[in-house]
Every structure is written in C-alpha cells, then in structure tokens.
C-alpha cells in the first residue's frame, strides 16, 4: 500500500478528536461530491468545509466562543449520522450540517466536559471525575469516578438492548457501568487512553470495543450483556512507538481497516478482523503528535483518503495510489491539483503578505510601548502539551513536550540527580551540558537548541529511587517578543513503583504504621508526594487503599490510609525507609506529632536480596560477555585466522553480539542501578534495624557486587 501526503491547511489549535469527516449523504453521492469535514477548534470556532479543487471551500463557520473539547456525530438511529454535537465548557451544542444550531444544552456538570459520546438520543458526558448520562437531555444517571476518566463510550444501544457506558480510567482499567454503579472493572496492562467501537459500530454483535493504551498497544475487548469482559486480541508494538491518541475504522477496497494515530506522530493502517491480530499495511511518520484521524473520500469522489490533524493544527490527507483505483482518475485529478495548487499558493502568498504588514504595525506599537510605558507587559500563554510517563520495560521515564509554535530552545534544570539518555533519532536538537555550581543547588543544567521547525522534544531519563526534586523546563518558542514558559515535573522518591491491580493476595512481611493527628487529605498528600499515579483527591472520605508494584524489583507495596492513620506493607525495605523519612519530614513541617511503628523482617531482606541478585547476575554476565567479545574481536586482526583459533563457544558468543547488545540496551544502565539499590538496601537495613555496620563491610559489599560468583553469599554481609 502506498500513500502520499497532501497538506490542506493549518487550522490552529484543535483538541483531540475534534475533526470528523461527515458520512456522505445520498444527494451528494448522486452528484459525486466529496465528503465534508467538520472541525471545532480551541478558540471555539466550528467550521465545516469541503475540499474543492484542492482548496478549502468553507460551508459554514461560527464565531469564536469557548474551547471545544470534543466533537461527535450523531442522529436518529438508523439514519445518516450527520448531526454535529460539540462540547465546550459544561454545555453541549448541536448543529445540523447546514450550520443551524438545533441544540444548546447546559449539562450542569461541576467540571468542564472532557469527554462526550452521542448515540441516538443518548448523551454521555464526563469531566475529569464525574460521569453523567442524559436521555433527550434528561438526567438519567451520574457516577463519581475516583480516578481520572480518559475516554467514554457506550456499546451499540439496539444490539445490546440498553445502554452500557464504558469508562477508560487512569488506574489501568475500564469500568463498565450500569446506571450509577460499577458493574465490572476490567484491568489492562497499561493505562487506557482512548476507546473506539470496533468497525465504528461494535462489530456484528455490537459488543466489541477497541482500546488504545498508553504503552502503544491496542486491545480488542468483547463485552457480554452481563458485563463480563474478555480480550479477543492484543496488538503488541514496540514501546517506543508511543501512546495511542486516536482510532478510527475505515472500510475501503472491500476490507475493514484500522487507522491509528500516535503521540509519537506515527499514522498506521492495519487490516482489521475480530478474530486475528491486525497486520500492519502502512505507516507514516510526521514530526508532531496526531490529534485525530478519520477516513473518507474528501478530495476526489470515490478515492479513499486518510484525514489527519496534528497538534499544531495541520490538516493533511494521505491519499491512496492503489492499483485498484482507476489510474486515469488519479492522473486527471493530479493534473487539476497542479493547476489548483498554483492558485492556492498565490492565495496564501497574498494572505501572508497582508499578515506581515499587520504584524509590522503591531510590532512597532509594542516597541513604542516598551520604550515609554512602565505598565506591565504580559504575553498570552502558548499551549504546551507535556507528558511524563514510565516505560516499564526499559525502566526509564519519557518526557514529551509539544508546543503550539516552533521551539527555539529549552533549558532543563533539576535539583536532584537525573540521568538523561540521549534520544538519537527523534530529536535534532543540539544538546549542551553546562557545569553546575554547588552553591546554586543545581545538579543538572542542560540546554537544547532546536533546529528549524521543531515543535516537539522527547527526553528519556532515569533517577535512583529515593532522590527527590523538581525538574524545571524553560521552553522558549521562536516568537517575538521572546518569552519563555515554565513547566515543572516532580521527581518523586518512589518513582519506580507503579499502580497495580487491586486483588493482591500475597501479604508482604514488613510493615510500617503511622498514627497521629493528621487529616485524610494530608495523608493523601504525603503519599502522593512519594508515589506516582495517585488521583488528585482521596477516592473516598473514609478509607483509601492502593497497591503498587516496583517495576525494578517486582516487590509489592500495599498502602492503606484514613484520617489519623497510614499503613504501609511491603518487602521493599528501602521503600519503607524512604517513606518514613518523607512522612516525618512532612509532618514536622506541619507540626504534627507522629507515632511511628515499623517492623522489618528478615524474610523481606532475603526476598529483596534474591530479587536484586537474580537480575544483577544476568546483567553482570552480559556485561562480562560484551567485554570479552570486544577483546576476542581484537584478536582476529587477520580474517583467515579467525575461525581456527577460537573454540566453538566463543564463536557463538561473537555471533550473538548484536542480539546481546540489543538486550542490554533494553534496560539502560540497569547493572549500575541494581548495584546502587543493593547498597541502599544495606544502609537502610542497618539503619531501620538499629544495627551497627561492621567496619569495612560496606566496602566489601561494594566489591562483591562487581562479580557474579560472590553474589550468592551476599546475605552474610548483612548483620541479622
């Protein structure tokens, strides 16, 4: 499959899934017209247009209002779904395809609408935590979700004989509701970011849902009427491909296709089937994240095209040059396009020169202002999309910054030690590390000087557990007057613990209990200062429970708190020590007296050591092997002596070099990190147990950690 890109226009900021291609009406089909596109942007402008002769032909455009957060298509069930619904603030508006507003409805939601889904006369909306269901604008049910809601939808109303709302939640699960109660919680391997009905209607039984995950995987779920859920298939892709931001299903050439847009900027087309994992047919990469993706014949009648919008507002099409399509049509249309494009270029040129004039006037005005006035000058904020997430396979954090305008440079500052890993292929920026002075309390000062037309920067990094600080980014766009915006990311001490599924039967052997005169929200704050992935507010008023898993050591951490008490259970002794230090510091700051009891069991220690040693062994072995391979390769200067002088074992070793290197690069610097963890465990064990460290034993341990055969007797170095 081969596609080529055609840029249509640059829209300005458009939220995710706010561009839709209208299904073709019968009259249009008869006249061989192309499909219409509807876009709702962040200024609040709704516009519908058609591509005619390669140019935008505006059909209607409203005045700016409030930021539009979601656009849905709907209509009476069984008819063409060409009614346009959009959400802004707390209200929902409906437009006909002629641009007439037929609905303006305030949902009365306490937060602004983030997700919306419309089918027939059912309207589902949700903010960050509140979900509401309306039927004909009448309130049917509401549900307060303890976690962040990422996406909502309902299964086919007719086929399922009723409404069954599904919520994609931040705690790695989907929640299936019945009325205002959760009927089923189904956990996934990663955070679900987007939901979409299979083949746009839920499949032949209307009960299949595609789920896009943060990890970049896609899962097809089958949900029965009794809400029991099962996975039909999971599309596993390399983790570096990035989170899924939008999904659409599109049928062309008599086949169903799955269209996927990712945060990394890649657009993918798969063949789609309920019974088997999709097969990739086409892939396109652009430099920005994809915000919405749709399929439709928008430029030439009958020629399918993939329509994509990006973060900074590019609307472009990926057209098919497929064998099945009549070549003459393509040729003819591309001729027209050439001529049309000339006109289009002229049009834009005039527009740009007009703008240049206008900008010159305003620039002078501003200059005058800076010469005379002492009134403050505040520049408008630019939209920055930043996300920081954990790659649990590589054990590193990804930080992605995306800006509305092109980035000139980024300054990175941090006050705790963070190790950055160079991202070679995604960034073209020139990196420059600066020396840090101790008295300035900096440990990291890096500037990224971006090349022309960069709107996105991706960073990868890792830190040691226990380090705590704030990573500050000063992002300067290439815009006059120059101004930078600040983004801050907390580096939490237990950054490598991840929220996990609730039902853990195993009981860890060590624990810590805190009692004192603190409130529930204080306890929640203290815990979320240390552990990632907690919601903003406590989930319930009385008792909250969360479980975490260390992605490095696979130990479990159970955390239970209520007003005046916190219970931590884990085998991770270092985690207890870190939490203890942080809690007591936070409490002292607020002058709260804490009663702290803890018990550190030997069983936990053995468990920890085993967990570290088992991984460290492979790492040390790989490290040694790689060094050995390097040495062996230097031996064979003369290619003829290569095979004869080496034993079979070494030959195999050398031939496996690439594989091994690949394997090691999967977990960058894990060996050093595990060694550091072991030393921290040694310190914490003795500290919490109140034991004196034998002279030189720490140095001995350090030495023992370098070779794999001394690892089995490590336990003897700890005082029991």
């Amino acid at each position, binding site marked *: 499959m081969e596609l080529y*890109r055609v840029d249509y226009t640059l829209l300005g900021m458009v939220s995710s899934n706010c561009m839709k291609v209208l299904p073709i009406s019968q009259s249009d089909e008869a006249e061989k017209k192309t499909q219409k596109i509807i876009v709702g942007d962040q200024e609040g402008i709704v516009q519908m247009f058609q591509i005619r002769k390669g140019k935008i032909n505006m059909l209607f455009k409203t005045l700016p209002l409030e930021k539009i957060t979601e656009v849905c298509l709907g209509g009476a069930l069984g008819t063409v779904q060409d009614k346009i619904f959009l959400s802004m603030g707390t209200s929902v508006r409906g437009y006909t395809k002629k641009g007439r507003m037929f609905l303006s409805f305030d949902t009365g939601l306490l937060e602004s609408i983030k997700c919306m889904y419309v089918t027939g006369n059912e309207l589902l909306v949700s903010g960050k935590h509140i979900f509401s269901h309306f039927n004909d604008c009448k309130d049917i049910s509401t549900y307060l979700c303890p976690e962040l809601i990422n996406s909502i939808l309902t299964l086919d109303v007719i086929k399922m004989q009723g409404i069954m709302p599904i919520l994609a939640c931040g705690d790695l699960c989907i929640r299936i509701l019945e009325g205002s109660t959760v009927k089923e919680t189904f956990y996934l391997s990663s955070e679900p970011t987007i939901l979409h009905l299979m083949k746009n209607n839920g499949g032949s039984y209307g009960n299949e849902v595609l789920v896009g995950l943060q990890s970049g995987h896609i899962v097809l779920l089958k949900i029965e009427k009794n809400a029991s859920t099962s996975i039909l298939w999971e599309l596993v892709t390399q983790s570096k491909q990035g989170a899924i931001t939008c999904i659409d299903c599109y049928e062309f050439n008599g086949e169903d296709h799955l269209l996927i847009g990712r945060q990394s900027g890649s657009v993918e087309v798969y063949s789609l089937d309920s019974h088997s994992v999709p097969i990739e047919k086409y892939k396109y990469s652009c430099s920005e994240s994809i915000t919405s993706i749709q399929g439709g014949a928008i430029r030439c009648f009958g020629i399918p095209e993939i329509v994509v919008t990006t973060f*900074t507002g590019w609307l472009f099409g990926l057209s098919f040059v497929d064998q099945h399509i009549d070549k003459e049509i393509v040729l003819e249309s591309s001729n027209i396009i050439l001529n049309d494009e000339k006109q289009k270029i002229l049009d*834009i040129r005039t527009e740009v020169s007009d703008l240049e004039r206008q900008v010159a006037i305003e620039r002078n005005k501003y200059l005058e202002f800076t010469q005379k006035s002492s009134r403050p000058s*505040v520049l408008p904020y630019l939209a920055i999309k930043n996300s920081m997430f954990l790659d649990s396979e590589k054990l590193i954090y990804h930080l992605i910054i995306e800006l509305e305008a092109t980035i000139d440079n980024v300054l990175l500052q941090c006050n705790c030690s963070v190790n950055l890993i160079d991202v070679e292929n995604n960034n073209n920026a020139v990196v*420059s590390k600066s020396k840090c002075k101790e008295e300035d309390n900096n440990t990291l000062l890096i500037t990224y000087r971006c090349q022309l037309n960069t709107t996105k920067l991706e960073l990868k990094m890792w830190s040691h557990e226990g380090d705590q600080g704030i990573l500050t980014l000063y992002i300067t766009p290439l815009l006059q007057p120059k101004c930078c915006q600040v983004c801050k990311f907390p580096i939490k001490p237990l950054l490598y613990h991840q929220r996990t599924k609730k039902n853990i039967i195993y009981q860890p052997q060590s624990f810590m209990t805190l009692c004192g005169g603190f409130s529930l929200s204080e306890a929640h704050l203290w815990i979320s200062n240390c552990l990632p992935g907690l919601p903003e507010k406590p989930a319930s008023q009385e008792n909250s429970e969360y479980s975490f898993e260390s992605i490095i050591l696979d130990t479990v951490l159970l955390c239970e708190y209520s007003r005046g008490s916190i219970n931590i259970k884990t085998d991770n002794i270092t985690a207890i020590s870190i939490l203890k230090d942080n809690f007591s510091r936070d409490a002292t700051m607020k002058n709260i007296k804490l009663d702290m009891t803890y018990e550190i069991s030997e069983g936990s220690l053995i468990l920890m050591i085993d967990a570290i040693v088992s991984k460290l062994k492979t790492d040390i072995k790989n490290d040694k092997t790689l060094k050995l391979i390097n040495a062996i390769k230097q031996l064979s200067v003369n290619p003829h002596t290569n095979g004869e002088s080496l034993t079979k074992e070494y030959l195999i070793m050398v031939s496996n070099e690439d594989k091994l290197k690949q394997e090691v690069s999967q977990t960058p610097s894990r060996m050093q990190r595990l060694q550091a963890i072991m030393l921290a465990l040694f310190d914490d064990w003795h500290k919490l147990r109140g034991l004196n460290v034998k002279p030189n034993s720490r140095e001995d341990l350090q030495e023992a950690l370098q070779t794999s055969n001394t690892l089995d007797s490590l336990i003897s170095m700890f005082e029991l």
Partner: protein
Amino acid sequence: MDYRIPDGVAAIAISKLNSMKDPAIIIGGNCSIQAFDYKGNEILWTVTGDNVRSIIVMDIDLDGSNELLVGSDDYEIRVFKDDIIINEISETSSICSLISLSIGRFAYALDNGTVGVYDKFRRMWRVKSKSSVNFLEKYDLDGDGKEELITGWSNGKVDARNSITGEVIFRDVLSNSIAGVVVGDYTRAGKCQLIVVSIGGEVRGYDSTSLKVDSGVQTNVIHDLLQKRQILMSELNNYTKASNEGQGIPGDTRLITEVSVSEETTEPCVLLTLSTNNSMILKAVTVFAEGIFEDETHVVHPDRECISSELKITLLPPKDILLDIHIRAFVGSSEDNDQFHVFELTRQLPKFSMYLLVPYPENEDVPKSFVKFRLVERVQRMDLWLTQNFIVPQKTPVKTNGQDFWKIAIKSLRDSSLTCVMFEKEVMLIYSANINFTADIVQTLASYLSLDQIDSVAEFPKVLDDLRESIQSVKTLQQNAVKLNASISDSSALLKNLIVQAEDFRLLDDMFHMAKCLNDIFQIDKQMIQNHQVTCENHEQLLVTLKKINNIIQNASRLRVNNNRTDTITSYRQAVASENMTILKKLIETGNK
C-alpha cells in the same frame, strides 16, 4: 622513493602550487607544512600555528594561480600563497576537514559538528549538529550541474546540501557511523555515483534517481507558506492579546550588561555583570559562545534564595581570540512565575580579554626580554588600539603626556605574568617574558595601524636557551630512537632463533630444554614490549619538542611584519638543521642573518 618526515604526516595533497609547472606533494604535519617535487626535493617549508588537520589547493582569490589552504587544530584556516600567509580565518573549533567547491568556494568541517561554506573569505552559511563530521565530499546529486556538499556524519547520517544556501536536498541514514564517502563511476555507466561506506561495512550508492520525485516542490511551498502564516498569526496574537494585567514585567525594563576583568574572584576571570534597570529579577541566564565552555552553552541558574536583579557570570576564554557571546536572560517579576520574558543580546569580548591593564610598574618589575621597533604614530591611536583589543576599565591606567609618550602594563590572568608596553619618541618597546603574547601584540598593532613593515630588534635570551635545549634534546631523542630500533631488531633476531630451537627440542622430545627456550622467549618478549613502550614515549617527546621548536620559530618571525618573512623562515630552518646557534640568535634578535 621513501622519505621519513620526523614531524609525522597528518594531511596530504597533490596539486600544482602557485608558480610551479609540475604538481607537488604537500604535506602537513606537526605545526609545519612541506612540499616536495616529483624528484623528492623539498621545495617549500613553512610553519603554522598548530597541528595541521587538512590541506587543500585551490584558486581562492581567482587570480589564476593556486593557493594553499591549511586547516589546523588552533581553529584557524590559513591561506598561503607560496609561503606567505595572505589570509587567516578564525573558526570556533579545530578544523577537521576542508574541501574545495566550485570557483572560489570551499567547505569546511569542525570537530564540534559544524559544517559550512566560504565564498572567498566570506562565510555563506554554516550549520551545527550534535554529531561530528567524518567526511566531506562534493557530488552533483540532483543533476542540475552544480555540485552539492555531501556530509558523512558520525551518527550514520548522510546528507547533501546546496553549496550556496546550505539547504538539505537529500538525506539518508545508515545504521553505523560513516567511514567514507567517495565518488566514482562504479557501475561503468559513464556517470559517477556517490558511494557511502559505514564502519559496520554497509555500502550504499546514490545518484539522481535516489531523490524522491513525489515530494514535489509545490507541496513544500504550501507547507512552508502555511507555516509562515501560522508564525505570523502567533506573533500577531502575542501583540494583540498582550495584556497589562498580571505577573508581567514593566514595558520599559532593560537589561544592562557590563564586562570587566576581575582579580577579586577566586580565580581571576572576565566578569560579565547583568542587571535590570528596575526590581525585576533574573531567574536564569544562558551564555552561548563557542570554544570557551565544555559545550557551547553555559547556564547560570541561581538558588531560589539568591535570586536578585543582578547576576554575575565568570568567563575564562582559553585562547586569545575575538569572541561573540550571546546572552539570553530570563526576566520576570517573581521567581515563581510560570512565564519569563527572554532578553537576547550579543556582546563581543575583545581579543585580549584575559588580560588586566595595570599601572606601569617600577623598574625592577619590568621583564628583561623585549622587542623594540620604530613606530611613527600618534598616541591617541594607541588608545584606540587598546580599547579595541583589551577590556579597558573606566579609569584608564595608561600613562601618557598626550604627545609622544605612552605606556601601559598588561597582566595576564592566566599566569599573572607582566607585559609592559612603552611608546616613547617614535620608539615602541614591549617588555615581556612571553614571546607568543608579544608576537600577538605586534601583529594586532600592525593590522590595526595597517603597517606593512615592522623591523624590530628583539632580545629573548630565555627563549634562545629554550631553543638551544630543544635542539639538543631532539638530537638525543633521535639518537635514542636509533638505539632502540637497533635493540628491537637484535631481540627479534634472537626470538626467531629461539623459536626454531624450541621446535627442535620438541621434536627431540627434550622437554627440559624446550621449556627453557620458551621461558627465554617469554622474557625477551616482555623486554620487547617494554622497549616498544619506551620507543613510543621517545617518539611522543620528539613530536612535542619539534612542535616547540616550530612554535618558537613562528613566534620569532611574528615579532616583525615583513612581506619577505618567508626568507627568514627558510633561514631559521637551515640554522636549526645545522644547529648554528649564532645565526639563530641573530635571526631572533634582528630577523636577518
């Protein structure tokens, strides 16, 4: 023919030089450039500032005869005509590669990842990347009759750029670092192809068919235009939506910079003081300058408690070159703002910024070595020369009577040595222990006052001693090398014998003697490794000493300005070769035999 060049060979070019009929071999080594004709006779020898990295021969000034372009480790590209330097171009890092393009143009690459093109002596464009350049080549990829600049990068990228604009017209990525790029008619198609090899052994060929046809020009035009529209709209938005409420800074906020030389800091340095004209704070400052920091940018981000409206930045330029520093200051009303205004400005540091001007000292503190020459000039021009090349404090320590008497002392911040410059009754006297710095002063004076000729008298007894010592040590080092070589060949002969003997004993089943033989082999082997290490060290030392001698000669010749300077360099060369210290002394003192 077999020649040994004791300096080592770092770059080589074969071409017709200026007035020569036959092509010559030009060799760049350790601070020196030599040329040989086809018979192997040395026809040119001259010195240059540092190790030569790249040499090309081309007609850069379009006068019909070829010039020699030499890129060296001291960031300079020097242009020689015969053996006179007719131009010097200062770059920001070591020059690792040069290549001539069409008429009067050449491309260069630096160690810090910069690639650029000069048209005559004017830079047309340059780009900097985080990876380093491994190879430069020229090839007409798009078939338009003009050759593009092909760059092979250390990260495996290959790109082709328009040599005039620097615009990338093609790029590809190989999985390993690029080992080489060549152009040749590999397929015998009558048309040359571009062939790229990576260190992993991957070979790829390109020609005009490699360019993608469908990425038509028109779509790019539309893309660029739309993007431009977007940028303009955002800027317009910035002006129209700029409000006067909230956490902004007053419109008339200014950033004041001051450059001074400070001895009070823990380490003497150039001090850059930034401040605002009101109470606005400086959250952070980045300073971009090439060649003075480890990387290209230095960041100052003070601790929360120490944030104020003033910030001091210490700079330590390692070399005496004119520096452009680009300052970017983040200014705001409070340190917790999430928006800061960015002030961008560029300041220039003079060539001799690491020197402090001090009042003229008492007689006993004045260094003994000196250079003296006649100079007919007004003292006012001397003041101007000083302000252009030094950071002059507000209260100038220059002593002058305004007519024919002018003196100043200069203290180096690097080693706090003193240099005294005295101008009295049309005689210029520079007292300094540092011959290099003195030569620099003479050269800047000459270029500032546009003097064609300075015939000076110099006395640097210490430098002369150094030279004598160096020449002596070269002799010993060369003798050592011969001795070591002899001992190595002895040992290897012995080894050969022993190996045969050991084999004989093995066949005779005489294990005792065989073991003994092998033991001997082991001992001799150990000894040889040791010998080899000594040889390496010896060679290393030889290179250092040769470099030192070349440097002294260059500096001594730079004490004067003369278009016939090269004769002197040849005289130096002969004097060094014949170890004639009297001639050398005379040469350094007067510039003539």
